């Protein structure tokens, strides 16, 4: 027990705590579109990247403070989501997934090739941690506190969204769109709003990530990251609010256990990816009949 407390309060434990907060924001927000709305949204990490780069550029080039950068990251991610939504939400299921995947690829290509702004593969270093009311967020324990507050705010927000009228409408259109329409639901608008909300939260997670790492580059927002967040949502049971908590803890902490095994550090990264892929495969296979139920049609 004392060893566990020691790990939790260690620098390593605090680092994991911050990661859990950031991934919980990402997972819960993806859960809105993918879990409740059954939108195969593969642009979530691209929204996170937009948020992260917005914070990185605004804080390093223009010295804007934490609140402005955070807000700007959320707004810019939201604007991109609206633009993407107008085009891709006209597409259904598989085509929507392809559309969002294409968007992610475009964002990745822009981050690498627009060197004048993003510095390409070199990334943006020196992102300053915030300082609010004299609290030094370069101390990781303080940054964990900030992450916890933001994460909890996001969770409370998504709880009410999911359990309220909007969440119900989203679940209805996911199950039987025409029946939802026959109850007066503007399903295109509901989808657009869910995509917007989800992307705004992803932008927030990106901003937090940029502040935490002090450095970002395009490799932090690859398809592998998208699959990682998708794995959390699938393991947590798409649509389940509390499932995201359990799955985030499980998916982040389980591969960490590999650190305590006698594995060379050069193989550790690959071993984690294999483990995540294995978990994803097993859950998808086990839940193959209920994970992606067919949408009914007239």
């Amino acid at each position, binding site marked *: 027990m004392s060893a566990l407390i020691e790990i939790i309060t260690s620098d390593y434990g605090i680092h994991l705590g911050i990661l859990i907060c950031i991934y919980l924001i990402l997972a819960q927000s993806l859960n809105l579109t993918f879990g409740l709305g059954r939108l195969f949204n593969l642009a979530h990490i691209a929204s996170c990247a937009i948020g992260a780069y917005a914070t990185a550029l605004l804080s390093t080039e223009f010295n804007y403070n934490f609140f402005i950068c955070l807000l700007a990251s959320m707004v810019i991610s939201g604007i991109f989501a609206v633009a993407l939504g107008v085009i891709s939400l006209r597409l259904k299921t598989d085509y929507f997934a392809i559309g969002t995947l294409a968007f992610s690829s475009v964002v990745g290509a822009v981050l690498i090739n627009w060197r004048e702004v993003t510095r390409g593969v070199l990334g943006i270093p020196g992102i300053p941690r915030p300082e609010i009311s004299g609290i030094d967020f370069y101390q990781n324990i303080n940054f964990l506190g900030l992450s916890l507050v933001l994460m909890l705010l996001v969770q409370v927000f998504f709880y009410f969204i999911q359990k309220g009228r909007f969440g119900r409408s989203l679940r209805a259109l996911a199950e039987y769109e025409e029946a939802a329409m026959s109850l007066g639901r*503007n399903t295109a608008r509901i989808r657009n709003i869910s995509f917007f909300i989800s992307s705004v939260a992803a932008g927030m997670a990106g901003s937090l990530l940029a502040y935490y790492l002090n450095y970002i580059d395009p490799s932090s927002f690859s398809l592998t990251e998208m699959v990682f967040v998708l794995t959390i949502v699938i393991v947590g049971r798409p649509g389940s609010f509390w499932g995201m908590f359990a799955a985030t803890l499980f998916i982040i902490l389980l591969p960490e256990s590999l650190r305590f095994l006698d594995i060379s550090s050069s193989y550790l990264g690959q071993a984690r990816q294999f483990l995540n892929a294995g978990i994803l495969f097993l859950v998808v296979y086990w839940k193959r009949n209920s994970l992606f139920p067919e949408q009914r049609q007239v």
Partner: protein
Amino acid sequence: MLKVSDLEVSFDGNAVLNGLSLEIKEGETVGIIGPNGCGKTTFFNCVSGFVSAFAGKIVFKEKEIQTLSPSERANLGLGRVFQNFGIFREMSLLENLLLAIEGNRKGASKKELKEVANDYLKDIGLQSKINSKAGSLSGGQMRLLEIIRTLAFGAELFLLDEPTAGVSPKMKDDVAGIIKKLQQAGKTVLIIEHDINFIQKFCSRIIVFNEGVVVLDDTPEKVRNNQQLKEIYFGQSA
């Protein structure tokens, strides 16, 4: 209440509705029958807005609606009950009803909404299952839930697509009972049904479709004894 003129719909070049015209007056209960593939469900889909007509006019409550979206038509009072059960199986009965009632009771508390939902469920004898998943209901119960949900939403014209499909013979009486309640409430009801014995209990008119047009429009008795109906269904000649 509903006037449809010269409606034409085709899929992949195959005409399904060939200039179909009909008129339904407010408070009427009208049955629609016809052989498979004659365009009955396509007609409902077209009126509901799920299928676009390339020609013709649909007027509902004195308003042309063919350019409106399905949700806009629903909000005008057009209620649709689907052949393959339009309930949300993954949701509870309460949630199914909340989807119908919360839009027109803005400002009502959760408790008040639940009470309204409970009252509707009482009407169909399912109040004890208010928190059960709708997918756990029998076919007949699902149909009752869908019809009462459409009533709770505030529909004025009900398009019932084979309401007895997937319903046990015992539950058919319950479905007939709720259709009678709609009539008593002054609602206009259009029913697609294969079972002429079922619809003649409450229909003042029966319209017969064949090859995308109306071929008969008369009282149930006259339609039943019409030679043309036998020819359509059985290919018999007089």
